[in-house]
């Protein structure tokens, strides 16, 4: 279980400290998917960099199974918005990177990588370099790279924003299945309300900067759908979409009024 407990984050800017996050608290249980939405630039990505151990909260703490996160851990995997595959490594070499960095012997890690490559529909592309892959293939490779370390928690920072609609739904569905099958926790940052409702059990909405938890929406029905693609067709979808849209809209107006 991943727990944010009164997490605040600020950094020293040119004109004093900039508060990004203020007292953010929520949990993401085992086998649970939480989507974080909020106005752009509000600090959603910062939240994930705190959870992944890349940065340390200014106040409060992030706990994984009750233990404070103090740095990167093999239990926590992250998928970034940008393409983070190493251009000078082939697909297979990229997938086994995490295992290599953690000192796994070559034969083991290559076997593990090839198994993941087959599992995620990348067979035949083992020797290709990232620039020769489509955006969707790159994301699959990055996903396989993350899952090679078998993390308990998956953090996704708007990873599918750049993909075309069809590829996006397919890969969203795969990620949800992988999460459910492994009883993993997943936190996905997005600004796409439909994506949030389709994938998540809970949607946490942040306010504008300094971001606080503005509202939490339980999404009880997305889990029942056979596929992520089916969720928008469910009768519950539209009322939830409207509620979240309205809540978000108010904060956008608020930002306009303040400016």
């Amino acid at each position, binding site marked *: 279980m991943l727990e944010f407990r009164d997490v605040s984050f600020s950094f020293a800017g040119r004109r004093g400290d900039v508060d990004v996050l203020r007292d953010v608290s929520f949990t993401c249980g085992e086998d649970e998917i939480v989507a974080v939405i909020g106005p752009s630039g509000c600090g959603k990505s910062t939240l994930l*960099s705190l959870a*992944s*151990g*890349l940065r340390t909260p200014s106040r409060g703490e992030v706990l994984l199974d009750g233990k404070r996160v103090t740095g*990167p*851990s*093999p239990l*926590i*995997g*992250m998928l*970034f918005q*940008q393409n*983070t595959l*190493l*251009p*000078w*490594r*082939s697909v297979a070499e990229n997938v086994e*990177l*995490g295992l290599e*960095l*953690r000192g796994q012997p070559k034969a083991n890690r290559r076997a593990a990588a090839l198994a993941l490559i087959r599992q995620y529909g990348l067979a035949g592309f083992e020797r*290709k*370099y990232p*620039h*020769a892959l489509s955006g969707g293939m790159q994301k699959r490779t990055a996903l396989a*790279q*993350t899952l090679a*370390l078998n993390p308990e928690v998956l953090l996704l920072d708007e990873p599918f924003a750049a993909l075309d609609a069809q590829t996006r739904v397919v890969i969203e569905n795969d990620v949800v299945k992988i999460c459910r099958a492994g009883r993993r926790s997943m936190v996905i940052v997005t600004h796409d309300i439909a994506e949030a409702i389709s994938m998540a059990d809970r949607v946490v909405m942040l306010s504008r900067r300094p971001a606080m938890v503005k509202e939490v929406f339980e999404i009880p029905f997305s889990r029942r759908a056979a596929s992520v693609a089916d969720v928008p067709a469910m009768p519950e979808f539209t009322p939830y979409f409207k509620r979240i849209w309205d809540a978000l809209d108010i904060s956008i107006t608020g930002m306009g009024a303040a400016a």
Partner: protein
Amino acid sequence: MKPSRHLIIVIAGRLLVLAVVLIGAELGVRFGLLSPLFFSSPTQIATAFQEQLDQGTLLPNIGITVFETLLGLVTGSLAGVAVGLLLPQMQILSRVFEPFLMVLNGIPVIVIAPLFILWLGLGLPSKIGISIYIVFFAMFIPVYTASLRLDRTLVDALRVLGASRWQIFRNVIVPSAMPSVFTGLKIGSGLALIGAVIGEFVASRAGLGHMILYASGTLDTPTLYLGIIALALFAAVLSFAIDALGPVLVHWRFADEK
């Protein structure tokens, strides 16, 4: 079919240009249209070539300039890569040294050359020193700039996967700099030769630069052309050799074009 025909025409065209220049020079000098003080016919240059070979001076002169150039290129490149990669890892040190390095880089090498002769004498060390000096900057500047513009997301992604500082250096920082190392080598290979020849021009007892300067002073025009041709051929060979290193240094860019 079509590309190969295209290639044949291009090669035939090049041979034609070469033939026109050679035959033109030969006839021009022979029939007095071109002054032998300023121009030499291919046969005169060939005679000078034979004379220099017989005297046993040509090959040592070529060997000395090649040696100075290659040693300057290798040492200067290695130093440029090392400093270019390591300096950005130490922020404060980097900021302390940056302005000094940039000013040193701005000084024209021709005015630095006499200083190297003063320090290292008339022999090879001063030429190698000048070569190292200019190759260092040709390599350091692009590598240093590339290291400063590193893609931080790649570093973050590796940190999340559990990479140590050394692993990040080896797996991200070094390969990220490789395209710049290649650029540095391309520029540096030309400059290494310039450095060696400038050193020989300023003060020397041997080398192609010395041979050219001496031929110019004694109005031995064919030998002057011979020196220039030898330098041009060496520069071309060096340039081809550096280009061949591309698939080794940046193999991923060449991977899917086979």
